[in-house]
């Protein structure tokens, strides 16, 4: 399922974290455990989610056991909305 939140997140990650705006991220692809988003950028992702969607991700949740794919992250955001 691809929706607006997924697209917004995928675009942000490609443009701002990977610095490759054309990079496509599969919603079911591992983004944390694969190292696609490394630890230096976890805080950025958390801040972006909060600013954009008004959902605060606690620092203890910034790991692959809470979410590892875009779909999991989107589900996490929806559950908090």
């Amino acid at each position, binding site marked *: 399922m691809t929706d607006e939140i997924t697209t917004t997140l995928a675009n942000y990650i490609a443009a701002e974290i990977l*610095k490759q705006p054309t990079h496509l991220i599969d919603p079911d692809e591992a983004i*944390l*455990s*694969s*190292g*696609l988003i*490394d*630890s*230096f950028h*976890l*805080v*950025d992702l*958390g*801040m972006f989610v909060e600013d954009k969607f008004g959902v605060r991700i606690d*620092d*203890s949740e*910034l*790991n*692959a056991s809470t979410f590892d794919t875009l779909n999991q992250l989107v589900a996490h955001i929806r559950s908090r909305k």
Partner: protein
Amino acid sequence: MPTFSDLLRSRYEETPEKVSVTMLHAGQPERPITYRDLIHGASGYVQTYAQNGIQPGDVVLLILQHGMELLYAYYGAVLYGAIPSIMPFLTEKLLPDRYRADLAALVSVTQPKAIVTYREFEGEVGTPLKPGVDSVRAVIVSDQTEGPTPPYFGSFGGFCRKPEDIVLLQHSSGTTGLQKGVALSHQAVINQLNNYGKAIHLTDADVFVSWLPLYHDMGLIACWLMPILMGYPLILMSPFDWIRAPHRLLQAVSKYKGTLSWLPNFAYNFCTQKIRDRDLEGVDLSTWRAISNCSEPMRWNSQQAFYERFRNLGLHSEALTTCYAMAENVFAVTQGGIDTPVVYEDIDRDILQTKKIAQVAHSGQIAVRMLGAGRPILNTRVLILDMKGHPLADRHVGEVAVQSDCMLTGYYHRPDVTERSFVDGWYLTGDLGYIVDGELYITGRKKDLIIVGGKNIYPQDLELLAYEVPGVHAGRASAFGVFNEVTGTEDVVMVAEVEVNDPVERRKIADGIRATVTRGSVVALRYVHLVSPPWLIKTSSGKTARSANREKFLKEMHMKGLMF
């Protein structure tokens, strides 16, 4: 001259109730550990090592995260007379296979007799071991060790160790780094602690606050051995927690009235950019007297931005200090900003690059701002040498050479590397710099080392990973670091020659290189640049000329209007 065990015993007998380490873990209550707790916990490990047939003088590898187990296992090894070495812990992104390969590389050279780790990790570390072939006799699982117990100092092997004996090993990352363990003696470390303690004027009011990893000299020496052995309180958090919540460092300084911290340059940028104001409510940084920028190239901009962001919390500008350090000298070589404010100067960039002379820039010329690393600490001398090993005059750029009473004993089991590193009793650092009236400035590196977030990365390890990707042939890739002003550290770039022209295929190769290097090393590859042969510049012996390739890459990017 005392040994580590003597110092630990004094702390235990003189101030058993004093809190030595306060462990902070995200989501858990703080955990104060007194010297009594520390020595009793370590004594349990002494028994465990004995039960596992470990002998004094054996190397014990610790694969544990920040926490009590690591504290007890480490100091237990010291009291037992064994030689502890902390191996970086497995991260989420690193492939288990790669971790095992790294571990096997370390085991083959260092020959540890035991590995201490968690139960869930036992399988990971046990797999690369070959019974009867390699050195490891025991994989000790942390939940199967003896519990805290009062010490019987008289029976502990640590008290039979002599000051000149090796007390610990430090490794840096990757296959290359793991095969070069820096072996340090009791005497060298204690000399460094005394010399450096004087340089930073340690007093009874000092409180150390750190999130640094312990497999690296800055964390291990300045924020683990120094406070614990010398009797200063240490507030310790894990790098895993800090990187996800950098404000915890500032909150800890405020809560515990922290006075001393050490940070790699990127951490100043990281804190400046990635902390929200709401996480700083009530935070008071006025006790922080020295925050030493250390372990990667230091930038005035990074320190200044940090100061501007946090000055309203009571941060003093004099608290921003600098330090030049290396594991081979135990830790610090120079320290700046303690007796006088940190110095900086604007140097003419063209003259620096073409004539290798640091001349103060006149107005209108392109300048590079150099931050002073300070002056040599006690019993330490620094020289700048030319290519032939002759000392250079002030303001001439050459290789930094160091002589001190706290040098490494050698690279463990690597007499060949040890011998190559010294000339006439001077340790050749591989760093480039210049001196002005005794103040050292570091301008760059002679060796092709990449430093990311304070971690030393050997480019050859990254290139070997790239060669595993189909479409990339051995010898056809070059890795190097390029400084990133925003993050305050280096970005890792890989240039690879490929023969295919199809854009889809090329993209697959680029993604493959990125993923393989990222999952196979401790760093994330930031940029992959695919080129068509012949592009890469080689040395006369056929090796990749990394600095030449770096220059060529930067020139190409510049011509395309891309900033690097």
